[in-house]
């Protein structure tokens, strides 16, 4: 690693992500981060006053592209179904190339139990689900997506596919590509749902 890059602050965040991936959020400590970085805990405290501050930055790192991805896809002239697929693909691609990052998604329930991270992780997850829900609402209005499920139900199904597929991928130590399977399953759900509740 070249001296000065990444910055010490970024290196601490990356080390924290690795530890969360290996040991869960409960396994994260300033001692472990310092050990992984080969620095003293006092040097770590120069960059972050407490462990909670590291966790906050980990979530910000995890969601750093969220708004840009959403705004980019909103402006695309594609079907609502494709917007949902492209939106999901953007995140899954990040996990596929950086598997440790997927651990933050899989630990989000735990992060809700920490005062400093509760609101932040809730906002991240809520915004992601809201994007998909809105795309479903518009897709149903345009007749592109079946109305058999309510937008909330369908968004929950998609969220469930991403979570369980990512969890299974992690359990098998990332031995197969994640993206293709998730996108294929979501496409099937979007394309094969019964036409409408009334039919």
């Amino acid at each position, binding site marked *: *690693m*070249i001296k000065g*890059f*990444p910055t010490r602050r*970024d290196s601490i965040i*990356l080390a924290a992500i690795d530890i969360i991936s290996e040991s869960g959020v409960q396994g994260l400590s300033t001692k472990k981060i310092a050990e992984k970085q080969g620095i003293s805990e006092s040097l770590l405290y120069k960059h972050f006053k407490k462990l909670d501050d590291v966790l906050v930055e980990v979530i910000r790192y995890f969601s*750093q*592209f969220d*708004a*840009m*991805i959403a*705004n*980019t896809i909103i*402006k695309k002239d594609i079907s609502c179904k494709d917007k949902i697929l492209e939106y999901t693909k*953007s995140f899954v*691609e*990040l996990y596929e*190339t*950086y598997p440790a*990052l997927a651990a933050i998604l899989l630990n989000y329930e735990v992060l809700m139990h920490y005062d400093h991270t509760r609101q932040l992780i809730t906002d991240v997850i809520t915004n992601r689900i809201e994007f998909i829900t809105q795309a479903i609402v518009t897709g149903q209005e345009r007749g592109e997506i079946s109305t058999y499920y309510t937008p909330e139900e369908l968004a929950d199904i998609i969220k469930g596919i991403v979570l369980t597929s990512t969890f299974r991928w992690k359990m098998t130590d990332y031995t197969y590509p994640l993206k293709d399977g998730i996108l294929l399953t979501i496409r099937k759900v979007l394309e094969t749902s019964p036409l409408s509740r009334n039919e």
Partner: protein
Amino acid sequence: MRILIAEDDYVSRKLLFKLLSQYGECDMTVDGIETFEAFAIAHESGTPYDLLCLDIMMPKIDGLKALRAIRELENRKKVKDSKRCKVIMISALNETEIMFDSYKTEYEVYKTKPIDIDSIINAMKELKLLN
């Protein structure tokens, strides 16, 4: 021409490699840390890259941070403007969504994914790497 392809997506990386190999010797990296390391090592060994194809959404350290570090290294080394590495930034994100700051110079052009061979060739022409 010495070319560094910094791209985490396998398909895009292979496509860029196939295309750019016609124009020079290509190396490949898959995240921002590797990219800066490769750039710094090439500089130290006196064989700097002429062109960097840089993905923005890369694992660990993103392309923008890597680019900022690269420009800072060139500044520290007092690299002449004409000798600065030319950069084609590539991303699925709209250019308008990306928070460029003062490090964006005339030595970078931006192209949106999916990668299109013509747009890469045009970018190289814009950067005066091709006639």
